[in-house]
């Protein structure tokens, strides 16, 4: 990786209230569509976090920055203003916070040198984030020289949620995180839990041994070899903050999908999860980056339209319920059926 990509023009848009979020055509085509076949079941679908052959994709850079960057960072700031518990770090995680700051600053400045720059002189560092208008001198390792803790500071400038996992006793412990774009789980509740505990509410996967295998894989992730996997759910309106904390506020929207509005109101919510071993703390950084595609966006790629239709139609009921799709699944299946020609699809998730 490490090209010198130029960033697109950032959209002025919202993830709440009037929901003015939209994808450009390019943004649709570069999305990490999660279905590589016509049906879906849990799997330990890990792979190395590397570029693929596709010219413009969410996998081009280690930490993707796209046209939604500024809008997403504004939304994060709003969430934190309302609820500071969305960022938490247990006391032993400070070094992992510095590790995270270094990793993100280093990759962002290598990937997008026109937009981000990092200059180091011993422990005296100089960080410039041009899109957000930030120019910060600080001393690496001295939290008093930053306006926030290192983890909060850098994750207020990076799309996606960030969970930091401490490794001990052959397990991973969720001991720090910045979580404002989550698919209905609470950092405040889960912080301090181990890998099996925070996954406790997930149906079917424990019995299938998914978490045993996933944990083994994750414990073996080394500094030089970050890994990734995709996960998904669906969200009514492009709302990043689908938190349990606010479920009583956004829950009613789950019943607002109709045959008339489903194309633009219902979104596939894709999580690009990646896994990074951190050098000083030996913690594992777990970024969870959210991409939204409306049903209409998906239908613009014929292969995706057909596949989305088939996946939703054949999804096991307990999985659909766990993902919260019961209110609108059939409406989506009905609308998508017009984009499914019934012909076989080509292998892999990329557009034809």
């Amino acid at each position, binding site marked *: 990786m490490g090209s010198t990509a130029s960033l697109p023009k950032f959209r002025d848009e919202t993830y709440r209230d009037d929901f003015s979020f939209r994808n450009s055509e390019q943004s649709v085509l570069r999305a990490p569509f999660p279905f590589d076949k016509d049906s879906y079941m849990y799997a330990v679908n890990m792979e190395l976090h590397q570029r693929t052959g596709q010219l413009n994709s969410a996998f081009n850079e280690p930490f993707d920055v796209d046209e939604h960057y500024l809008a997403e960072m504004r939304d994060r700031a709003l969430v934190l203003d309302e609820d500071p*518990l969305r960022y938490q770090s247990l006391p032993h995680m400070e070094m992992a916070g510095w590790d995270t700051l270094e990793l993100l600053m280093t990759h962002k400045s290598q990937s997008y040198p026109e937009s981000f720059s990092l200059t180091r002189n011993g422990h005296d560092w100089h960080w410039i984030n041009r899109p957000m208008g930030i120019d910060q001198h600080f001393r690496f390792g001295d939290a008093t020289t930053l306006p926030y803790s290192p983890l909060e500071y850098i994750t207020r400038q990076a799309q996606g949620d960030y969970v930091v996992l401490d490794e001990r*006793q052959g397990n991973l412990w969720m001991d720090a995180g910045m979580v404002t774009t989550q698919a209905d789980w*609470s950092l*405040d*509740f*889960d*912080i*301090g*839990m181990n890998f*099996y*505990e*925070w*996954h*406790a*509410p997930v149906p079917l996967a*424990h019995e299938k041994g998914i978490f045993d295998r996933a944990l083994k894989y994750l414990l073996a992730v080394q500094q030089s070899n970050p890994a990734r996997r995709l996960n998904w759910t669906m969200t009514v309106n492009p709302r990043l903050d689908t938190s*349990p*904390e*606010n*479920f*009583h506020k*956004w*829950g*009613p929207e*789950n*019943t607002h999908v109709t045959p008339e509005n489903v194309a633009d109101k219902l979104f596939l919510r894709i999580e690009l999860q990646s896994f990074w071993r951190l050098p000083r703390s030996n913690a594992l950084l777990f970024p969870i980056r959210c991409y939204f595609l409306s049903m209409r966006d998906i239908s613009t790629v014929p292969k995706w339209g057909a596949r989305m239709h088939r996946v939703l139609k054949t999804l096991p009921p307990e999985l659909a319920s766990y993902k919260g799709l019961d*209110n609108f699944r059939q409406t989506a299946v009905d609308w998508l059926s017009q984009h499914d020609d019934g012909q076989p699809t080509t292998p892999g998730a990329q557009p034809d």
Partner: protein
Amino acid sequence: MMSTTQYASFKSRPLYGTLSPVSATAHLVVAEGEGSEAVKTLVASASAEFLDNATLIYAKGSGPEDATDAMQALGFKRFHTSATATASLPRLNAALDRLRMGTQIYLTGNESALSLFVKACADAGQDYQGLQTEHHGSLARRMQCVHCKGITENVTTQPAECAHCGLLLLVRDHYSRRIGAFQGVNINAEDPADVPAKEEMF
């Protein structure tokens, strides 16, 4: 050692075992209500020296029976008594502050009391995996409202109202040791007009 359980289940839900004496430099026993039964069995199966270096904190709890006299008669070197598990926490915290290296901790009582005791131990830096626990009495739950963050004590129904914000909550099996509570999530967020009946559950 939360090894055995009579409540098969959910990976985040605490499992309770049976108290049994181990060789340790000292022993700290914390019991609530009907947990007195576990303390009697523990002491009966322990060596003669066990009590010489042992502390018992006993909270009578809200049940009708009061085992305070029986607990005092067991002959622990140090014995503190409290009305409830909550009221016992300052003394438990003080005991945890001055705990000697190599002390074994034994916790017993109802589900809520165990939540409080385990949380106090964890807050004091004890690894929960080294604690012995045994459940006696009510399965009434401590519940954290995920919305307002308030804790509701003695939850016995499904669903249950948050004592703080009043939302009707689904009491999940998802449990946080750090908070010492099960998670409550608004059960009728999608349709507030749909109000499910409460059933006695815990």
